């Protein structure tokens, strides 16, 4: 905490003394006052809402596609081999390359944002799910087989539960990626949301507002990450077996 205080004081002093030109770096106190003023305004919350909407729909769509696909691919050696090269080729494509295509096909509204966020968030989640399906404790699987569990029962009782921590990690990574792409779409395409507001504040010369909005965007990212980490820890607590497996393997 002291670190933050010192950094803020230094920034304030540097700006007041014009070590950093105050037209570009307004004093922290002014940004804070602007931020406090904005918190009372509907416009800020509307922008946060738009960004979160794009994030949630994009991540939801990615999860709806990637988790079932990952389960299907991860449970069969043939399907895995059939899809591996395709995934390895599609995954590194920077999703921002598709921005112009999204504009053409979906226009400049919410749909473009959701498409881009979903495309980008799909890959980490798909890969994590596939790995999770493949990294099942063989002893647990053999035990289930010995006890006469059918294929479908083995899937729901052994394989899926042990893949949950992987999926949770995938969701956390994808959540970050979806937020990045939502803000990018707002910035580049001009869909409603925090990205557009930040760019507008810069273009309008309202630097303190721009910094205030960047801080809000950071808080949104930090908050979402915190929520996902907490959920993930919960999921891991539900699976003490997984933790011992991981511990013994390391």
């Amino acid at each position, binding site marked *: 905490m002291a*670190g933050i205080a010192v950094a803020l004081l230094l920034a304030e002093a540097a700006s007041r003394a014009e070590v950093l030109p105050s037209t570009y770096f307004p004093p922290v106190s002014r940004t804070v006052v602007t931020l406090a003023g904005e918190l009372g305004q509907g416009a800020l919350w509307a922008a946060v809402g738009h960004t979160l909407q794009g994030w949630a729909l994009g991540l939801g769509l990615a999860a709806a596609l990637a988790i079932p696909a990952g389960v299907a691919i991860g449970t069969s*050696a043939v399907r895995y*081999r059939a899809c591996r090269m395709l995934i390895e080729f599609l995954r590194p494509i*920077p999703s921002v*390359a598709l921005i*112009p295509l999204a504009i053409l096909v979906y226009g400049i509204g919410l749909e473009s944002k959701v498409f881009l966020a979903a495309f980008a968030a799909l890959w980490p989640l798909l890969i994590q799910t596939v790995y999770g399906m493949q990294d099942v404790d063989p002893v647990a699987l053999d035990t289930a087989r010995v006890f006469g569990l059918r294929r479908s029962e083995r899937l729901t009782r052994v394989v899926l539960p042990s893949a949950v921590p992987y999926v949770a990690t995938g969701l956390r990574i994808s959540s970050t990626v979806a937020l*990045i792409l939502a803000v990018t779409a707002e910035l*580049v395409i001009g869909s409603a949301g925090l990205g557009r507001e930040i760019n507008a504040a810069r273009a309008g010369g309202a630097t303190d507002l721009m910094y205030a*909005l960047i801080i809000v965007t950071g808080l949104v990212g930090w908050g979402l990450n915190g929520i996902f980490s907490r959920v993930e820890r919960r999921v891991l607590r539900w699976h003490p077996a997984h933790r011992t497996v991981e511990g013994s393997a390391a």
Partner: protein
Amino acid sequence: MTAMWRRVRLILLELAVPAAVVVAWWVWSANADNFYFPPLAEILRTFADTWVFERVGTDVVPSLARLGAGFAIAVAVSIPLGTALGLSTGARRVTEPIVEFVRAIPPPALLPFAILVLGVGDAMKVFVIALVGLWPILLNTIDGVRGVDHTMLETARVYGVRGPERLRRVIWPAALPQIFAGMRTSLSLALILMVISEMVASTSGIGYFILQSERSFDIPEMWSGIVLLGLLGYLLNAAFALVERRVLRWHRGARASALQ
């Protein structure tokens, strides 16, 4: 014999599926008559016309130069900084909240800030790429340095290994696998920021070319740019994996023998 036949079949399958997807795209797009999805044959023809090698000097080279410069700065700053923070608990505790917060800001949100301070030139793009690429390497270096085996550190101390020697022979080799993991994440982020910064404010570069083609409805040109970026992403990733495997050869070897 049957095991070998099975392996051959799997390899064939691995190659057949991507080929089938390309053929399907080819056939579908040839007959689709869709303005936004031109025939694949036309995209490839445009690709050859545009990128071999007409626009390489004007767009590809500037893009890659920015990417390289930004990534190099990120590496050069974050590895020493990460090492220092990893070694000092006090410094880490002081800086941790700041690092955690700045890292949580979605990178594109920093773009307007960079434009404001540095204008719309190359400096801004290199700065953004470096700034965003910094965090994954920094955090992984900190973790890697902190995670060095204590037995190893104590052995080094007993043998009187200290100072730069200790860094070079004990700490960095042990942290290197994790530093590389950070660099890999950072490289793909750098590519994304390269494209975004060129789309928002630029007069050259691959990102600029794609957006410009879309705005003037040169759809095959736009697609050819997307294909190029896909290829670049794939090749950069593959090249990095190659370097990583070479540099960490000793590490994998050590791991494999430990497992046996």
